[in-house]
């Protein structure tokens, strides 16, 4: 499986990023480079999970605002700054669902659907596609989240672990269980 290349950074890039963070911690006006680097990633993460483009931009702004207000608390742990931003984004996203401002949405590409049906060793029929749609909508939020992160967004288990605040191994186990549950729902709807 291909993995999200944006997550992986060279040591040089990480050091550069750390210097930006240090500067932003001292002076909020220096937040620009971090904002420009991660704005698109965070927007896509948010918009992937909702259907309202304008609201997705608002939520993204909210994420960066929260990040800026709390950047003094940020501690570098040898992982990209994006992991911290994703955690804030996750929290803001679920807040918007709770406030009923946005509707939980799963956006899938046709090729992703095909990949998943392959994973289940099933044929690429229209019927199976519909079944998979229904199965995904029946999945619990925590499992759906794992399926999205791992199978649709192609994130590594390490990154998933950092976003969900679990260990890499735990992320692996949870993702495996989530796909098993989806398979079970898919097969039971025959």
């Amino acid at each position, binding site marked *: 499986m291909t993995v999200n290349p944006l997550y992986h950074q060279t040591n040089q890039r990480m050091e550069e990023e750390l210097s930006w963070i240090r500067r932003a911690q001292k002076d*909020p*006006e220096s*937040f*620009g480079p971090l*904002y*420009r680097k991660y*704005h*698109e990633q965070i*927007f*896509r993460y948010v*918009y992937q999970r909702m*259907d309202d*483009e304008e609201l997705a*931009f608002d939520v993204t*702004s909210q994420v*960066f*605002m929260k990040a*800026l*207000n709390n950047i003094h608390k940020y501690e570098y742990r040898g992982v990209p700054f994006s992991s911290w931003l994703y955690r804030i984004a996750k929290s803001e996203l679920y807040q918007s669902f709770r406030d009923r401002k946005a*509707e*939980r*949405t*799963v*956006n*899938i*590409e*046709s090729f992703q*659907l095909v990949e998943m049906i392959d994973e289940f060793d099933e044929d690429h029929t229209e019927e199976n596609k519909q079944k998979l*749609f229904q199965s*995904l*909508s029946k*999945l619990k*939020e925590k499992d*759906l989240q794992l399926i999205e992160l791992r199978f649709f967004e192609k994130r590594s288990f390490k990154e998933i672990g950092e976003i969900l605040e679990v260990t890499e191994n735990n992320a692996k186990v949870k993702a495996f269980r989530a796909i098993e549950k989806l398979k079970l729902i898919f097969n039971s709807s025959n």
Partner: protein
Amino acid sequence: MKTTKIILDRPKISSEDIEKKQNLERVLQNAAKSKPGVLKNPWFYGVVGTCSIAAFFLFFPLDSEKGTDVRDQKASSNVSDFRSSKSNEVIAELNTKDQKSTKDTEQEIKVSKTIESASLNMLSAQSTSDQVNPVLSPKKKITSTARKPLKVPNIGGIHSGAIKGSDLFKQNVIESGTSEPIKSFMIGYYNGTTDVLEYVSGNELSEKLKQDIIAYNTGEMIFFTEMYVTDSDGKLVMLTPINLRILPN
């Protein structure tokens, strides 16, 4: 049951379109607006709390000392009161009992003064009150005038440390540790109302005294001071004080 909307092949937003929507100024402005106020900042309460406590101790230092060391302070004030009255009486009484030649009397007066100053030093040290200390200069007076005690006085063989109330009750006298009995002593204890420093003629522990000590001083320290005996030359000598903690039976 919850419903999740599933969308297939939604048109993608280009990176350029997303970039156009970037607005760092707005983020900075909103961040500045949404910063929690001083009253919502936990640091505020920490600083205010610390300052309040510091101010309290700054303005009420004496009260706090009274609260913690009230017994010591009472004891020291008793020492001061006693200094002017009882000590002189003790010395006068002892002097009348031991009638000697004029030369001897003069010597005794000198000794008595020595005893008085030394005993005051010892009592002040016991009371642990710094307020008494400036009046006296312990080093100078003790080294120049106090005589070396003969032997260690004791109650039932115990000179310092702890004694059970029941063991104290069995004892009727304070042993001087010498062939001569103790002529008089002072005892510092709590009588249920206040700390007292009581003069006792002779070496006997009365029943009333023992009962008070056991009733009100269990777990506390009691002090036997200014214990006088005569040495082989017939001169008055003060023995080292006895400090005892009364243990429950």
